């Protein structure tokens, strides 16, 4: 006999129920409308689950989000991640500037974003979808990775963000926000 924290099969219905407190900011179906708050709809299961672990363990901090994650169990996280992955992502309304979008498109190539985030920046496994994500949130996160306060899984994003200037961050965010929010092909 062994004991521990078994990870049961994720439960969509339980996820819907457990997502009740999340709705106020992230939207009923994981499509948020508040600038600076990410949409979780269609994000890969591994991604959302790992982020919740990071918030719970204090590796990623946010005054609004951190308290919600404090008491989540592994099962809660699995259910929430499965629920959000099953939702259909919608584009976030954003005022983007064509010159910044074009500069961001070039930067995304120079910085190899598709290597991990996949073509179309749709995300994959532990890597989030960036396409159609909220502009203000993208800026906030990229700044956080550069400042090494965003909480990284294995260091890939922290390393990638170091050469980015403030203008680069803005341009990249404008580009990503304009891409169609195609859900990740991996769940």
């Amino acid at each position: 006999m062994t004991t521990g924290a078994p990870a049961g099969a994720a439960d969509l219905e339980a996820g819907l129920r457990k997502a009740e407190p999340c709705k106020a900011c992230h939207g009923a179906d994981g499509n948020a409308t508040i600038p600076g708050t990410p949409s979780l709809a269609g994000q890969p299961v591994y991604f959302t689950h790992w982020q919740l672990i990071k918030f719970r363990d204090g590796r990623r901090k946010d005054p609004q989000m951190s308290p919600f994650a404090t008491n989540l169990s592994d099962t809660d996280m699995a259910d929430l991640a499965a629920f959000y992955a099953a939702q259909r992502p919608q584009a976030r309304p954003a005022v983007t500037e064509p010159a910044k979008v074009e500069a961001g498109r070039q930067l995304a190539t120079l910085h190899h974003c598709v290597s991990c985030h996949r073509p179309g920046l749709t995300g994959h496994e532990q890597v989030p979808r960036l396409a159609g994500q909220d502009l203000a949130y993208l800026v906030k996160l990229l700044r956080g990775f550069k400042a090494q306060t965003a909480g990284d899984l294995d260091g890939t994003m922290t390393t990638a963000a170091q050469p980015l200037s403030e203008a680069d961050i803005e341009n990249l965010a404008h580009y990503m926000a304009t891409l169609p929010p195609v859900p990740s092909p991996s769940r």
Partner: protein
Amino acid sequence: MLRITLTSVAVLLALAFAIGPLADAQQAQPQPAPTWKQGQPANMADSTLAPIAQPPAPKAAGEIPVDKIKVPAGFKVSLWAHGINNAREMVWGDKGTLFVSSRVAGNVYAVVDNGGSREVKVIAKGLNLPNGVAFRNGTLYIAEVSRITKMVGIEDKLDNPPAMEVVYDILPRDLPHGWKHLAFGPDGKLYFNIGAPCNICLPPDTHANLSRVNPDGTGFEYVAHGVRNSVGFDWHPVTKRLYFTTHARDWMGEDSPSDRFDVVTRKGQHFGYPFCHAGDMLDPEFGKGKSCNDYVKPLIKTGPHVAGNGVEFYTGAMFPAEYQNRAFLAQRGSWNRSKKIGFRVMMVTIDAKGGVAKYEPFAEGWLQGEEIWGRPVYTRQMKDGSLLIADDYAGAIYRVSYSR
């Protein structure tokens, strides 16, 4: 001619500055790819090979097919503990607590054996890739990317762990290959690796090595150079020599270069990275003008992309006599190869002269066809001579026992 050339350079430089601010020029530069993608040849740009994602949660007991693990006749495998997210290195406390590290999960665990069952406690969380754990005189030492810390008297305070006191915190902060194996050597010093901050690059002199420091944080020194990333080593029980595994660079082919198993015979030896791989293959970029004969050759070429992690010499009383002083090598398994390889524990028999008599499988079965369900990453002998194997993918620990 020289004068003209220098003048031309000066003119070009002046032009460059006149054209625009330096910041703009830098912006247009391609940046290094993510570590795993570096060194990928142009003709493989569309390759779908990528590191295997780490699941965010450990598998439930019922999802762990222990019976698929094959071991030699007379040996038996059981599930010893589970629910340990990303379980990696294991080390015993003086009072019988098993301390278990993790990497991306950021946790250190204490596993308390209550006879028939095991209780898992998280004693530290939110750490920076805390792969290394070592124990001595009641104190647990933990290696994160850029620091080594300790918890004094931890075994008496598992539910209220003491503060982590800094032992040494001026290690490089690079995250790629920044996670560490940590172990006490026969000289009482703490040994660890400082990996190359890349797949392939000319690393700074401070990287790609094995290093050691006194447990009080004094006396830092390099032990071996040219080591790309070793996250497993141990000392031979008789000769006291240091043996280590190394992960070789990626994107140089399905079957090359081989990973390696090495022995340090003299402090300061150079094992070839980034100039020469596996002792006989010059790097296409960094090998130019170099000779593999200038570097130490591997004791064993352990196979391409196998990802050798844990090394442990067997000294227990349970396994048959021929197992004495054999080394167990846990191979976490490949990603940069279309046909998977590794995902097994190998064993090495070293002869009286220090040569390799045999290199053969000990436990395998985490890879079924091209599907994996677990990744063996470190081993640790139990007091009774049985062998624990940690699986960071399933978040489990197995016990291998023997009875004749």
